[in-house]
């Protein structure tokens, strides 16, 4: 017996007063030795995980502090990366990271929303299970595979699209491309390769399955009674989706998108394989050359001095803080929505 309620004999004896002067009983749990040992082991697991995770965070902060103290506020505004001459900052790489993630999410959001709606609302019941498995499986495909595809296939087929976009939307600064004349048939197309656009597109395909998976999960939980109510009131299928499924799944859409954004911000290999790194702020998303924090780390870790390592740590810490904010925003939004009540 593990749980023992203390018997009245354990209580301090009541001083022979009237029977209505009852002292409230103290109810406690005395656990068996095996249970206490078990809880100790569990607590030990929790403590060690907490210790490892805190150690990672504190170590990053401690090592980054050295570089951050030297760089000061200019760490956020400098574009170059020359830590050994104490002239370095993340302005270029953080802008590149954000741009790649923006491109990725703006492509992945409609794609995953459409796919999730198809699976939960339109697909025949027999096909549905296969599609769910396929999407979950694609979410587990290593990012290096997407990088291979982007580098060897997509890049070559996107130059025409990029050229067309840059010609038609030249008045919109982010889509303009410098250093080439679209009317000149002999102009080189390499200016359209290795760009933010290509990297963002590859990353968008990488994050689409995970976003689809989360949205589909939430859409399928939309209450059947409300769906049938909407249909019984005469709404079309789209009317039902718009008035029941989408409001119910709003938390899932936002949460899934934020999770995809977090993945896109932290993606290394697919980006590293495609971009050609430059250390200046590259606003032109279609133009050759961009950079991201994670590919900066992959590029420079090998040759870094002790101080250079500290500077890379500072860059990594900034990225971590960025994804942390995105993740917590996602989970708080998802928890506040109707569909997230249970989780």
């Amino acid at each position, binding site marked *: 017996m593990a749980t023992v309620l203390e018997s009245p004999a354990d209580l301090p004896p009541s001083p022979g007063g009237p029977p209505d002067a009852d002292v409230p009983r103290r109810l406690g749990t005395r656990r068996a030795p095996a249970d206490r040992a078990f809880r100790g082991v569990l607590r030990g697991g929790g403590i060690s995980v907490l210790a490892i995770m805190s150690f990672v965070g504190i170590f990053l902060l401690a090592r980054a502090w050295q570089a951050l103290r030297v760089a000061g506020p200019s760490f956020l505004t400098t574009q170059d990366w020359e830590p050994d001459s104490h002239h370095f900052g993340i302005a270029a790489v953080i802008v590149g990271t954000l741009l790649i993630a923006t491109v990725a999410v703006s492509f992945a959001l409609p794609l995953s929303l459409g796919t999730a709606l198809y699976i939960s609302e339109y697909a025949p019941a027999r096909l549905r299970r296969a599609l769910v498995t396929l*999407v979950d499986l694609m979410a587990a495909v290593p990012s290096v595979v997407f990088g291979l595809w982007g580098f060897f296939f997509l890049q070559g087929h996107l130059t025409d*699209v990029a050229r067309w976009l840059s010609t038609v939307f030249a008045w919109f600064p982010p889509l303009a491309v410098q250093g080439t004349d679209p009317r000149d048939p002999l102009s080189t197309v390499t200016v359209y390769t290795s760009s933010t656009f290509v990297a963002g597109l590859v990353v968008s395909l990488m994050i689409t399955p995970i976003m689809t998976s989360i949205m589909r999960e939430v859409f399928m939980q939309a209450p059947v009674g409300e769906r049938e109510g909407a249909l019984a009131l005469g709404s079309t299928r789209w009317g039902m989706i718009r008035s029941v499924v989408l409001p119910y799944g709003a938390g899932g859409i936002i949460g899934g998108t934020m999770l995809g954004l977090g993945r896109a911000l932290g993606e290394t290999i697919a980006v590293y394989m495609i971009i050609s790194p430059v250390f200046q702020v590259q606003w032109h998303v279609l133009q050759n050359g961009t950079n991201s924090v994670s590919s900066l780390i992959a590029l420079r*870790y090998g040759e870094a001095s002790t101080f250079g390592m500290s500077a890379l740590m500072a860059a990594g810490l900034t990225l*971590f803080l960025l994804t942390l904010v995105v993740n917590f925003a996602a989970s708080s939004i998802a928890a506040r929505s109707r569909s997230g009540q249970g989780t």
Partner: protein
Amino acid sequence: MTTLASRPSGAAPADHAPAAPPASAADEPATPARTHRPAPAPDPAPERRRQLGGARISDALALVGSGVAALSLTAVIATQLAPVQGVVACVAIATVLFLVVYATVVSLDADAPAVRDRVVMVVVHGLAFVVMATLVFIVTFTFGRGLRALLHANFFTQDMALAGPLDPLTTGGVAHAIVGSLIQISLALAITIPLGLATAVFLTEVPGRFSRLVRTVVEAMTALPSIVAGLFVYATAILTFGLDKSGLAASMAISIMMLPIMIRSADVVLRLVPGTLKEASYGLGSGQWRTVWKVVLPTARSGLTTAVILATARGIGETSPVLLTSGFTAAFNANPLHGPMVSLPLAIFQFVKSPEPSMIARGFGTAAVLMMIVVLLFVLARVIGAQDAAARARRADLYARVLDGIRVRPRALSELEPTGDATVDPVLARYAVSGELPSEAPTAPGAPDSPTEEHP
């Protein structure tokens, strides 16, 4: 409305007038109120059951017609009006034209909400098709480019120590990377399974302020970018503590990536274990340790296995932490403590850096091997997931129904109704409407039984 209008004129409004106010009828009981039953209208035709679902021929015709129109218009535009080049541009123009034409065609015999419904339906189908086709294409592209390497048996049995960049595919292989990946993931699992599952159980079984703190920190660490995890292990284990770039360092980096994923998904699964099961166990006098070991873990077994396998699939495909910590070698190395040890993602990354076609083919072949391992892990997760108590109960239930001769084949409701069969089981009818076998309902009674049936 139509039946009212077609009534015979004998039932004129004048006849109804005295019967309408009930007060006057009560005043004059002598005159019996006469009720006229209108003569039934001759049925013009036997009534036909309306078709509520399914596709009409006009829907298909509208789709096909719009498609043909869009293609023809695109052809005209591309060849006569504007010099459009490239497949992508043509597809884009055709898509826009198709949507416009289709909306117009549907609006000919439907109102605005129906038009919007149709257009959204087409757009959703199109988006889903694009995503699925692209994902399937990425996989087939990888296998297609890697096929040349995969066809040689030596690809799976040799390492790259003796194969130079110019060597044909008949020498060299990725055995070292396969073994390296397996060793690294086994080491990582040896760290993460006990630690991760213990922490997940801790979060659900010992609630309190401390476990909330642990849960928050774990949730925060899921945001850790993989390259930063690699950088951390590189800076601590390798630069500070002087460990070699080795398989052990790589598995430490992978563990830091896998641990939060595993804890989070295992925590979700464990929280789904019904409280009544645990309370029943406590009520029978077992302690917390026995309850967890005999009730909670067996109930959540398939979910926990899925959590472990999903974390494994993530861990085995991570490239960036391995890039920083394991070092690169072309030779076979089965010792995780000493010397660089290459894994599959890193081998892919190094292969495709080379401009040689044979090396690139090797890279794609390695990617195909990696994906096959991931698929294998997934199939394993599915098989184990189908083995849990609830599924067993569900299957037993299904067999019993089949043996009893009850047809649980999905039937349309229209098939059930006209027979006037009063004995139609309402539960069965509901499943017949949804068109699915009763997969969920029997779970509820099945699930709570199962742990007790395992441990009588």
